[in-house]
């Protein structure tokens, strides 16, 4: 029985638009029957107020370390035992998670544009989906990244948008 290979992991902080397809292709693997991708996009409202765009700021060297740790922890948690001979009825097992890609954009992100992508490939469906959900939870809890909503509200004192 082959043991699972170490997961392929990539993490990036990008100032340019994120290419979701390239993220999917990065994780695609003959060992994987499932790819799950989460894409965070800039919504047009914040607590009911119109949003013009988002501005993301990042402590980049630390953020890269945190994202790498998040990916490694998540891949380890959803690793498989390499046994592909068994029928899986629960959407897990086999090689488990085999690849993960995390990319976060910084700078100005327009409405509908992508701010973050997490892609994960696994032998089976639930490992892939759960690993992505968990990586997003950990990213939001730990990565030193800040979002600021640029709202369509003019400050009456300064005349600038807030």
């Amino acid at each position, binding site marked *: 029985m082959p043991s699972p290979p170490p997961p392929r992991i990539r993490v990036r902080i990008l100032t340019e638009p994120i290419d979701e397809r390239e993220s999917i292709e990065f994780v695609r693997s003959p060992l994987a029957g499932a790819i799950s991708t989460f894409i*965070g996009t800039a919504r047009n409202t914040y607590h009911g107020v119109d949003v013009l765009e988002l501005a*993301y*700021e*990042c*402590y980049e*060297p*630390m*953020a890269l*370390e945190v994202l790498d740790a998040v990916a490694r922890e998540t891949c380890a948690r959803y690793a498989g035992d390499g046994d592909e001979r068994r029928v899986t009825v629960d959407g897990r097992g086999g090689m488990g998670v085999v690849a993960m890609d995390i990319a*976060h954009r910084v700078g100005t992100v327009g409405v509908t544009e992508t*701010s*973050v992508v997490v892609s994960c490939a696994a032998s089976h469906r639930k490992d892939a989906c759960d690993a992505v959900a968990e990586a*997003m939870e950990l*990213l*939001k*809890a*730990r*990565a*030193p*990244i*800040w*979002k*600021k909503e640029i709202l369509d509200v003019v400050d009456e004192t300064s005349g600038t948008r807030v």
Partner: protein
Amino acid sequence: MPLLNVLLFARARELAEASSTTLTLPDDPPASVADARAELLTRFPQLSGVLQTSIFALNKTYVKRDDERVAIVRAGDELAVVPPISGG
């Protein structure tokens, strides 16, 4: 007298009108993150509010609020003020 590099982000950066600063702290007894927090407040009183909800990262590792007194800072260390994060 360690010279500590301090990075300021998000609301802390906006209020301080600076993305970084340096602090000179006593080295006998060695200064802690708690001392840096106090010195920052003296230097930038306008950070009073945001510092209450911020934690520090020392050389890219978060320092728990309860550990600030025991986390020693050394010359050349990088200390970051981390207001509540909101990535994703």
